[in-house]
């Protein structure tokens, strides 16, 4: 023991043991305390309630759900709605953020100032206020279905204050051919990309990639689709006395929340992108120019790959923020996990501890998953020390 204390490494071990003992003890104390207090109140812990029928409706669901479904299914519905808004939000915020970030660096005074105003405005207003603002701002000008259609009228597509409503596509049997042709086009395109790369490496000459691949992937399935005589039926929404019935609806709250989250997160991403690009010494670009690379090539081949190394860690944390911020959905009735499960289900069952545990676990898992994906990506782009 004395020998252990004598070395700095040994002392390190002792400190760690003491600290982690304290930590584990504290956690166990909290858990035991929670169970004790629940027992005192005559509450039984357990997840049996997940099989009970939920009894409430949910306005938007990616899987089939009705009032007779279980709380467990309501949990999945909420989870999928959260994943939906987070994944689409991350993609859009990345695009918008990169665009604004590059605009911010533009030599054009007006463009750069506009980007600056955008960033400073949206970064500095609390997100909840922005969500409520955009919700009302989106809701007010949009017409109600009653103002748009007469009773009994059917329509294919409408964007009104209930959401984006469109006729539900119902594929016929031969529609699978269209999907197969799409798959074929993608495979051929990948082959073409690999071929052009090989050709550039060995012979040094370049062939066009973007346009042929794009037209193949879009054109071939479309051509097959029309050759087969449009093998897709639509069930149209029909206007009733108060609102429409049928069709597929993406609720208006989804758009308001998505818009707010994207606008807000993009402002942060823009600054991260700017910092990343400015973090690369200008000498790198000058060296590339002197080798004869064009401005676009320099950006694509020299500046951005290096800037990504700086950008990715803070970008990851913005992705995590966006996912977590999506839980503000409850304020505007978007049926996400917090609103459906930690809101309605919690109140109906009173199972606060179990439900909060599940909800926290979901956000933790989503965050860890995002971090994992980004870390794997970063390990591809990092500098290899030799």
């Amino acid at each position, binding site marked *: 023991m004395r020998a252990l204390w004598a070395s700095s490494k040994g002392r390190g*071990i002792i400190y760690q043991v003491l600290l982690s003992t304290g930590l584990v003890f504290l956690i166990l104390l909290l858990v035991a305390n929670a169970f004790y207090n629940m027992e005192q109140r*005559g509450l039984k812990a357990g997840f049996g309630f997940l099989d009970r029928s939920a009894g409430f409706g949910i306005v938007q669901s990616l899987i089939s759900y009705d009032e007779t479904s279980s709380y467990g299914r309501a949990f999945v519905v909420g989870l999928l709605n959260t994943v939906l808004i987070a994944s689409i939000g991350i993609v859009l915020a990345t695009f918008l953020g990169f665009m604004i970030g590059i605009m911010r660096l533009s030599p054009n005074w007006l463009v750069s100032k506009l980007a600056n105003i955008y960033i400073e405005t949206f970064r500095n207003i609390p997100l909840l206020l922005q969500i409520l603002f955009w919700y009302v701002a989106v*809701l007010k000008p949009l017409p109600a279905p009653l103002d748009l259609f007469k009773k009994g009228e059917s329509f294919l597509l409408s964007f009104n204050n209930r959401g984006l409503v469109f006729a539900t596509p119902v594929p016929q049997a031969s529609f699978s051919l269209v999907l197969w042709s799409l798959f074929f086009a993608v495979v051929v395109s990948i082959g073409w990309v690999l071929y052009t790369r090989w050709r550039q490496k060995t012979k040094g000459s370049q062939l066009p990639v973007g346009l042929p691949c794009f037209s193949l992937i879009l054109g071939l399935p479309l051509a097959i689709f029309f050759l087969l005589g449009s093998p897709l039926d639509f069930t149209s929404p029909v206007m009733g006395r*108060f609102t429409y019935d049928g069709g597929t609806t993406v609720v208006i709250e989804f758009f308001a929340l998505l818009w707010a989250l994207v606008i807000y997160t993009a402002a942060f991403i823009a600054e991260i992108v700017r910092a990343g690009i400015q973090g690369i010494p200008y000498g790198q670009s000058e060296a590339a120019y002197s080798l004869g690379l064009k401005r676009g090539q320099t950006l694509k081949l020299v500046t951005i790959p290096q800037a990504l190394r700086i950008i990715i860690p803070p970008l990851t944390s913005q992705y995590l923020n966006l996912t977590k911020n999506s839980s503000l959905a409850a304020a505007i009735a978007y049926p996400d996990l917090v609103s459906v499960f930690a809101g309605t289900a919690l109140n109906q069952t*009173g199972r606060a501890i179990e439900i909060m545990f599940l909800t926290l676990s979901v956000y933790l898992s989503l965050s860890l998953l995002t971090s994992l994906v980004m870390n794997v990506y970063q390990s591809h782009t990092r500098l290899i020390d030799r």
Partner: protein
Amino acid sequence: MTFKSIGRGLIAFSLPIVFALGTLSFTLNPASALGGFGGGGGGGGYGKTLEEVKDKGYIQCGVSQGLPGFSNPDDAGNWSGIDVEFCNAVAAAVFGDPTKVQFSPLSAKVRFESLRSGEVDLLARNTTWTFDRDVALGLEFVGVNYYDGQGFMVRRNLGVNSAFELNNVSVCTNTGTTTELNAADFFRANKLKYKIVAFEKADEVVAAYDAERCDVYTTDRSGLAAQRTKLANPREHKVLPEIISKEPLGPVVRQGDEQWADVVRWTLNALINAEEMGLTSANISSQKNSDNPKVRRFVGTEGEFGTALGLDDNAWAYNIVEKVGNYGEIYERTVGPKTPLGLSRGANALWTNGGILYAPPLR
């Protein structure tokens, strides 16, 4: 990371777990020590709420985040409403001073947890008394201070006269309330199609309904009357005649503290009995030396009802009526026909006047 450092890490993590498992068997047994750490720390405790309330000198009362007529703050942060005055009445009973109350605005979602954890001593937050809440959630409903029922509000220009016409509608309401379930039950039972749009706060429900996001707004009928005053043009909306549920709203306390439950329950009974006996804040001081034994018991000149409840003053009921008023007075100032809510007594009239308000006698 080398193998050596992994080994060290393993030791660092496994040792404390062994320690902790050893201590767990110890910590779980003398659970009473842990209980003091949780319940008592939060100000709750069992069988001792009254004592704690007396010690700290005020009652922490859980109310809504703003429902006109029930519990609503004004610009200066002063609360008013039927639930707020109930809290005042309990304070008058305990301290002889109705102002010794602090209000905690609670969302529908957190209200029960706040009560159970001891954050508030009493919940007077337009809360519906249901089996599940009373039996399975560790709560104790002490009575009913407003008999309500769920209804529907629609825009007049839709030309709707009955809730049974509401097929294929979009319905706005609050999350985490019985309202959501009642609406689901009503539409399912009558084979009507609906979409529920559930918001966390009442203000957002009103804003969304006002922006025509929904065709129908559903909540308790008293709530509809209250929220209607917040709409841009209250006259353009109407409440449909159907009442689709029973919503007995009442004060709630923690289960397991019968003494405190009795104090709150008898405060409510005293308010109702006072109205029945014709005792008001204006006339009760002149009744102090009444010969009527019923009145003498009420004002505390006969019997020891206060000390039996654990209160310091036998004139606790006298204090309630003198400083706050009887049930009828409270009703008239908060939700009655002369207020913006304009709710007639209806079921909330005394049993002697055709209502269902009936309190056990004070004897």
